[in-house]
């Protein structure tokens, strides 16, 4: 049986937020709820990296463990889903989740009136009948039952975000890492940043000559 996983290639993510938009559009997620988000480290500085994050469908899911009504369940494909009819909106899943995946339509409201928790379903819907109107209203589209992969990964323009069977995803990523080499050898580097390797080599040469010049002065 396939084990579904997400993988975000930090070398490829260009922070376009296409995955966020694709998700919101596909599932008609209410205002204020974002099942997926892109976080950028060192924004605007050379070496910045972005990562798209949502529910990671943990093997030992903390949300599942702390839920007072035990409303979570795991599909055969390792997707963590929940039953909104049982959700009491206590926010415990949000406290426990490392990724900040659980979202609440009312936000952090007074008297803890958060509303029913909403999170990424790996485009696998909920406990209602696959593809039913009821399921769509509560959880969004059930693409997995139609044989499609999650909309965010399908939409990703640089294929940074991969979703699917873990063995396939890891094969793609392993192959990618081996092929792309490192730094300026990376595929697409020269297209995106021009000179690529030659430029970098030139910079290094310049640095070296400067250093030598300084040493000469001393």
């Amino acid at each position, binding site marked *: 049986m396939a084990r579904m996983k997400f993988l975000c290639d930090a070398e490829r993510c260009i922070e376009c937020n296409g995955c966020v938009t694709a998700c919101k559009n596909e599932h008609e997620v209410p205002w204020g709820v974002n099942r997926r988000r892109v976080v950028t480290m060192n924004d605007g500085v050379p070496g910045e990296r972005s990562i798209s994050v949502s529910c990671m469908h943990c093997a030992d899911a903390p949300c599942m463990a702390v839920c007072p009504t035990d409303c979570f369940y795991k599909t055969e494909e390792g997707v963590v889903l929940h039953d909104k009819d049982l959700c009491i909106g206590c926010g415990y899943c949000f406290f426990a989740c490392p990724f900040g995946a659980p979202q609440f339509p009312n936000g952090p409201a007074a008297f803890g*009136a958060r509303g029913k928790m909403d999170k990424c379903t790996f485009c696998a819907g909920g406990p209602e009948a696959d593809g039913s109107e009821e399921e769509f209203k509560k959880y969004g589209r059930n693409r997995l039952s139609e044989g499609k992969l999650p909309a965010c990964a399908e939409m990703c323009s640089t294929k940074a975000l991969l979703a699917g069977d873990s063995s396939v995803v890891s094969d793609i990523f392993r192959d990618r890492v081996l092929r792309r080499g490192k730094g300026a050898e990376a595929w697409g580097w020269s297209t995106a940043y021009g000179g690529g390797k030659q430029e970098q080599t030139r910079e290094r040469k310049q640095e070296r000559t400067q250093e030598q010049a300084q040493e000469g002065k001393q």
Partner: protein
Amino acid sequence: MTTSLFKARAGSDTWPWLFCLLAVCCALAVARPALAEEPAAVARSAETGAAAQQKRQQEQPLNNAPVWREVRSGDAHFTTVRGPETGVLIQSEGQTWRALRNGPVTLYGGVLLLAVIAAILAFYKIKGPLTLHDAPSGRMIERFNRFERIVHWGTAGTFLILAITGLAILFGKHVIVPIFGHTLFGYLLIVGKNVHNYVGPVFLGFTLVMIVMWARDNLWHNCDAEWIRKGGGLATGEHVPSGRFNFGEKTWFWIGVTVLGLTVAGSGLVLDFPNFGQVRQTMQTFNLIHVIGALVLLMLSLGHIYMGTIGAHGAYDSMKTGYVDETWARTHHELWYKEVKAGKPGQSPGHAPAAREVAP
């Protein structure tokens, strides 16, 4: 499966956990402002941050170790998505909270609660209730006026509602779900959680009034020393004189109602009103304080409920009607009885203690 995993883990390192937990909770509550500043300082250290990543990209292109350290740091980074802590990629504290809450707190909390109930029942079986030494005189004196009774039952009622709904939130999954199933329990707990969240602040209000109302009568009195020496005469049945409240009641008042009541209600407010920008770590800390405090308060309250109902004859009537028999007063609160008889003012705030004949 997860729960049993934690139970198994909790079994190996047992008591130090509980002890450390309380200490850590207190320390965290005090040290919060300091903790909030700490991650920012770490981010600026040589290993992480923009400068480190920039340097690493030149020395070892595609080695993003500084970035992954930042991912793991729990610091907030840039994101266009608005919401609580959306810039944080990984918060590690949730796992600690989960391990403590699902592990020792649930396990030992449940075991201790059952142990207290068993101990009280055993005491009742062996010793039986406290009875009067002499026949009732038939003359009644006022012990609690109407206002005091309203405040007491207001606090008691809201406490019981909170206790039942709170226990359902912590133990329902293990106790109620196997019997009633997920669907019914889910619907019940939707009501239960909302009741808990709205009744909580009402309980705090009653508790505050109660503390102000009875604080003076619960101050230390010289006769309390003798009460402590003789253990209240609970085991021996010996007569120990005491004022309006004996030392057992005073202990319950200061440790139970005042300290634990305010701790539980206060930490509850932090959880009940997340709209002031509390971060997840704050919620986790206060949740543990709330749950542990509430469990200890509940255990103490069982002792109080026992003494107020089946544990001592006449005690329940005193809070129901407000009046006690003179013999009851002389047996349980001799000094208070003498003061009332001497007509000392201020024994029963607002009302002069009045004698009343019961209808035959």
